């Protein structure tokens, strides 16, 4: 009896390992941890669906209760947990990229402006000079979206809901004020920052967000009026011209 259960488990174990190994094989070398977790989670999804359907609807009457219980435990706890962890890790990692910001079209003007070499906005300057090497939006907006504390999660959920239900108004605006700490994380304590008199004089106001960095160093992005050119027909024309930088 036990050897039969054992054989079954060995079979699923080997099948699971083989499928994840096969998936990993197809990727580039130097696979990052996130990709591994993601691959394992995909294997868990496939395996879980197979195990659950086969166990409950096909072989249930033919296997022992013990075998059934183990298979159900595996399919209802272990594999779903793996899938959930994988999906969460994938989401947290992927949403850091500029590409994922661009997935929502309301972000188009911000993304285009960021990557436009003629733009002089604060975000574009950080981009073209490579001051921020990657995940540009995320680096300045760390407290935003699905990252960070509870408040940020709530905001992220609210934005998501507004987006998919289409119940927002353009131009979109920043609720509350931009937290200066996002800038200070990189700039605080650097000689270039510390030597500026305005920064020293306003130190307390800047740290308590009473004065915003962008009041002197803005605009961070195109103004609502300027954003229009990155949308609609005019934008399509711009993008389709021969020397388009986009």
């Amino acid at each position, binding site marked *: *009896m036990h050897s039969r259960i054992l054989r079954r488990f060995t079979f699923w174990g080997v099948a699971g390992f083989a499928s994840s190994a096969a998936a990993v094989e197809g990727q580039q070398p130097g696979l990052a941890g996130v990709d591994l977790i*993601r691959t394992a*989670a*995909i294997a*868990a*999804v*496939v395996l*879980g*669906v197979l195990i*659950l*359907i086969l*166990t*409950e609807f096909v072989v*249930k*009457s*033919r*296997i*022992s*209760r*013990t*075998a*059934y*219980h183990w298979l*159900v*435990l595996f*399919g*209802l*706890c272990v*594999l*779903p*947990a793996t*899938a*959930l962890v*994988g*999906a*969460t890790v*994938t*989401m947290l990692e*992927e*949403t850091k990229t500029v590409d*994922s910001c661009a*997935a*929502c079209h309301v972000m188009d003007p911000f993304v285009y402006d960021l990557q436009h070499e003629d733009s002089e906005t604060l975000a574009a300057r950080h981009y073209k000079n490579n001051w921020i090497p990657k995940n540009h939006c995320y680096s300045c907006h760390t407290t935003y979206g*699905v990252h960070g504390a509870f408040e940020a999660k709530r905001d992220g959920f609210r934005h*998501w809901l507004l*987006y*998919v239900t289409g119940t927002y108004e353009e131009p979109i605006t920043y609720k509350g004020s931009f937290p200066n700490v996002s800038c200070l994380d990189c700039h605080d304590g650097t000689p270039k920052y510390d030597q500026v008199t305005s920064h020293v004089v306003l130190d307390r106001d800047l740290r308590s967000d009473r004065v915003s960095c962008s009041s002197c160093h803005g605009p961070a992005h195109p103004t609502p009026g300027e954003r229009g050119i990155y949308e609609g027909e005019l934008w399509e024309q711009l993008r389709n011209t021969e020397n388009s930088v986009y």
Partner: protein
Amino acid sequence: MGTATEHGKFGVLVRTAVVLAVIGLLCSGVLLVFGAGPWTVGVSMMLGAPILGLAILLYLVVVIRDLRDQGIL
């Protein structure tokens, strides 16, 4: 030792959990395969995750009640 079908007391609950888990697993697979976007996050995290959670919860209820019936808990 009998076969699994003889143990029918919680059969409906387990079957519900299985169906929920299959749906939940398929939903979370969407984000895993297609990457993060407004719709995939919606399907996987807002729909798939709660469904999977419910499946796991149902299963735990069955296990705890089963152990109680057997006088272990």
